[in-house]
C-alpha cells in the first residue's frame, strides 16, 4: 500500500481545479473550496478504481480527514 501522503496526492489530482498545496493527509476533505456531494462521488470512484475498495455512505459519514479515508481503505484491503 502506498503512503498516506501519496494517497492524498493521488486523490487531489482527481479534483481538477483544486491546488495540491492546500490538501494534506490531516485536512478535512470537506473543507476543499466549493465542496459538494459531487466530490464524494469522485472520492468513491477514485478508491474503487485504484484500490478495488467500495466506500458506502456510512464510511463517508464517519470520516473527516483524508487520512481517515486512507485508514478505511487500508482496513478494507486487509479484511
Amino acid at each position, binding site marked *: 500500500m502506498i503512503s498516506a501522503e501519496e494517497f492524498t496526492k493521488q486523490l487531489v489530482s482527481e479534483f481538477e481545479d483544486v491546488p495540491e498545496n492546500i490538501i494534506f493527509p490531516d485536512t478535512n476533505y470537506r473543507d476543499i473550496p*466549493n465542496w459538494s456531494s459531487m466530490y464524494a462521488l469522485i472520492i468513491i470512484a477514485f478508491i474503487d478504481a485504484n484500490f478495488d475498495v467500495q466506500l458506502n*455512505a456510512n464510511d463517508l459519514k464517519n470520516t473527516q480527514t483524508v487520512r481517515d479515508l486512507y485508514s478505511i481503505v487500508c482496513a478494507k484491503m486487509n479484511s
Partner: protein
Amino acid sequence: MSLLTVNNVSLKGVAACVPINVYSNLNYSHVTQEERELFIKTTGIKERRVAKEGMSTSDLCYEPAKQLIEKLNWNKEDIDIVIMITQSPDYFIPGSAIILQHKLGLNKSCLAFDINLGCSGYVYGLYVLGNLLSSGQLKKGLLLAGDKSTVSAAFTDKSAYPLFGDAGSATALEFDESAKTMYFNLASDGSGKDAINIEHGGSRNGIQKDTFDLIEIEPGIAREKRHLKLNGIEIFNFALREVSPNVNELYSKANQTIGDTDYFVFHQANKLINESVRKKLKITDVSKVLYSLEKYGNTSSASIPLTMITEASDTLTTKNSKLCLCGFGVGYSWGSALIDTKPFICLPLIEL
C-alpha cells in the same frame, strides 16, 4: 445464476424519439456556475431533452413505433404483441401499451401490457418479449421503452434535476429460426427501494397534506414528496458492487469474452458511474463503449435503444454485430444481455 436464453428471435429494427426542447445544464440557474461546470465534467451530461407539458411517454413511443412499422413494411394486423417499459405511464390506469395498441391501429387480438421497470427495463423487456416470441405462437412484437422522467424531478433538487432527459423508443423483434441465441443475466434487489423512489402518490402514502410541501433536505436539494429522490452515493455503490460481476458472469456462462464484443451499450447513468463500470470490466477499447448521455442525459428505459441508433447506426444497419447490453438502476434491478444482430433498421432520431 442460471444462464437465461432466447432462441429463434431476431432484432429487426430500432427507432427512438426525443422532445425537441433542449435544456443546457450550463444554464441551470439553481446552482452556481462552478457547480454547473463540475457537474458537467463529472457526469458528462451537457444537455437534455425535456418534453413540454401535455406530451406524454406514450407520445414519445408512438412516433418511433409508427415510423418503424412503416419502414419495416409490417402489416399492422401481423403484430401480435406490444410491451411497454415505463415508470412514467400516461395514467395510473390503464397501461400505456394498451393505449398504444389502439392508437397504432393494431388488432384487438394483440397482447398489450406494461412492465414497471426503469433503467434495467430494456434488457428485461428483450428477455420477456423474446421468450414470448420464441415458441412461434406469436410472430412479430414491439418493445416500447420510454420515460418522461422530467415530470417528477424537482428544479430545486440539484441531485436529480440536471441528470434526466425524456425519450421514447420502439424495437421490433420477430420469430426467426435462423437467429442466434441471445444470452441474459437478470437480477433484482428490493432492499434498494429507497435509493431511487417517489414516496407519495402510490397506494402506500397516497396524496397527503404534505405531498406538495417543498422540503429542504440539504443546501441545493429541496423537493416535494411527489418528486423523485435519489441517493447518489448508495446508487453509485450499488452500481460498483453489482454491475461488473453480472456482466462478467454472463460472459463466462455464455462462453464468450469481452474481446468478442463489437459494442457495449450500457444504460446511460452518468459518466462517472459508466466509466467506473468500464474500468472494472477492463474494457480498454473505449471506442466500443457507446455514450449518448452528453446530449440526452440519463434517459431511463430508453437509454440503450437511443444510444444504439444515435451512436452506431452506420455499423448496426450494415454489419453483423455482437452487442453487450447492460441496464441497472431503480429497484434495484439490473441485467445484461449478449446478442448477435444481423444488419437491422435504425431510423434516424425523431424529434417531437
